[in-house]
């Protein structure tokens, strides 16, 4: 943990009275290494550590009898600040049909979280959700979502794989209106931010659906690339929220800090398992202590 590393680094220093700026620099190196091991982006680590250093000097860590502990406390406070306060809630329309669209890289958890969101919104907000299977590329993707819908007793709108996603979304919106669904959750195919053709498709889907939420689904074990991915998706689509998935593992999840820091997009939910009820509202303080390790 960071406090152990700092204790180690300071062992050679104690007994000298107060610390020097070099000692602070030694501690900052440990902070940097710890954050890099937690998968926080390299550039974010640099800026963040500089802010911690300024605080450390400002808060008279030099004269403290427990400098290591004090630095850990400063890092924790700074992490919490970046993570933001209480999670921002979902945006629902006051009247009419609310539209959510899930986007993100292949295999990061969109289809599973489309199901989780549907269940969550039905239970917590008494919504009547409609799932929309707009992934016509991945083998059995429609099967997967239909099966999830059946498990939840929530209908899934699908037209098979021989129609384009644009057509499916258009028809789904009509269907939702006719059948009084006040919430439509669109599952899209996984894609890279650098795949121009597929990103253009996503922009067309956004144009057609006019979503109230565009939720970027990101695997919590994503490394340095988290910044590239989130920034590019945000620049191209104006993402309204992030769902951080697979947090039931032991990854420290530094991607959360990077995404929040670089794009400012709020992380709204945490995925904590494969079951459809394993979804929780994002806890900034819990995330901060997890990254701290």
């Amino acid at each position, binding site marked *: 943990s960071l406090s152990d590393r700092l204790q180690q680094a300071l062992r050679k220093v104690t007994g000298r009275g107060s610390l020097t700026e070099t000692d602070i620099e030694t501690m900052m190196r440990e902070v940097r290494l710890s954050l890099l091991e937690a998968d926080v982006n390299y550039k974010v680590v640099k800026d963040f550590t500089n802010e911690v250093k300024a605080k450390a000097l400002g808060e008279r860590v030099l004269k403290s009898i427990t400098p290591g502990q004090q630095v850990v406390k400063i890092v924790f406070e700074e992490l919490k600040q970046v993570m933001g306060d209480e999670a921002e809630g979902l945006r629902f329309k006051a009247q009419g049909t609310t539209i959510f669209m899930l986007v993100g890289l292949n*295999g990061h958890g969109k289809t599973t979280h489309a199901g989780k969101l549907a269940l969550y919104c039905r239970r917590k907000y008494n919504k009547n959700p409609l799932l929309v299977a707009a992934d016509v*590329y991945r083998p*059995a993707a429609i099967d*997967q979502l239909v099966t999830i819908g059946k498990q939840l007793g929530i209908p899934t709108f699908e037209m098979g794989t021989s129609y384009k996603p644009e057509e499916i979304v258009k028809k789904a919106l009509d269907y939702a209106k006719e059948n009084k669904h006040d919430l439509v959750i669109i599952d899209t195919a996984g894609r*890279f931010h650098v795949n121009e053709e597929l990103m253009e498709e996503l922009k067309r889907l956004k144009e057609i659906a006019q979503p109230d939420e565009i939720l970027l689904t990101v*695997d919590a074990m994503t*490394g340095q*690339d988290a910044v590239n991915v989130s920034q590019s998706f945000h620049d191209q689509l104006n993402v309204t929220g992030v769902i951080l998935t697979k947090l039931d*593992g032991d990854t420290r999840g530094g*991607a959360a800090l990077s995404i929040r820091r670089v794009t400012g997009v709020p992380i709204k939910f945490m995925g904590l398992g494969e079951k459809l009820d394993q979804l929780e509202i994002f806890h900034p303080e819990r995330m901060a202590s997890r990254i701290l390790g």
Partner: protein
Amino acid sequence: FESYDKINDELFDELEEIFIMADIGVNTVLELMDQIKSDVRIRNVSSMKEFQSIIIDKIFSIYVKDEIVDTNLNLNDNGLTVILFVGVNGVGKTTSIGKIAYKLKNEGKKVMLAAGDTFRAGAIDQLKIWAERVGCPCITKEPGSDPASVMYEAIQEAKKQNIDVLLCDTAGRLQTKVNLMKELEKVHRVISREVPNAPHETLLVIDATTGQNGMNQAKAFTEATKVTGIVLTKLDGTAKGGIVLAIRNELGTPIKFVTMGEKITDLEYFDIEQYIYGLFS
């Protein structure tokens, strides 16, 4: 490197940044940087060309580790070969099985797939579609069946049909889930009991976007099933998957395949020179 005309601290910093951003991992990067810097100092290097060759050389030696690196699959010359695919959720196991089966079939092998993911929605259907694309049989049981029983039946059928290579799909699982890792150990045991020396390959599938957790994955899966090689997927993004170098450095696990797309042909045998080139492009 064209923008630099001499080797200075700035250049070393930029190089370190490239390595970290490639997810190679702090310890391995520090080790690499030490070796590069000391070589530059000892050999009194001043030319960019020589500097480049030192970098390539050092990465190459981490990868080669003074042994013959066998990126070929360990295939059984007289009998059934069994390949087990393992890894955490969503990394590309099922898709990679389709691609590798296709490649082996084109190399003249008779292949068969085993749908060992009996848990996730749509998993069995997904593998069946890949089997159709490859043009090979796929052994399945009802959702919820014991994965070990799927492997058992697939092995019996593979022997009957004189199959050369049986590729076994498993459900994704996070390495921290003790009961799921126990299930995987059982699958491994059943396979090794039914075919001598099997599984001949246990391939750990790793997503190139994965950060340092890839090392935890490699350690845990190796402990549960003796991983013999890595399939590095999704290299068609912007991530470099550098954690596989750290895994190679620490555990000795070789990388056997890389995939770069969703098409059946988007698969190549791992080539360290191409990989190093990709780090800097």
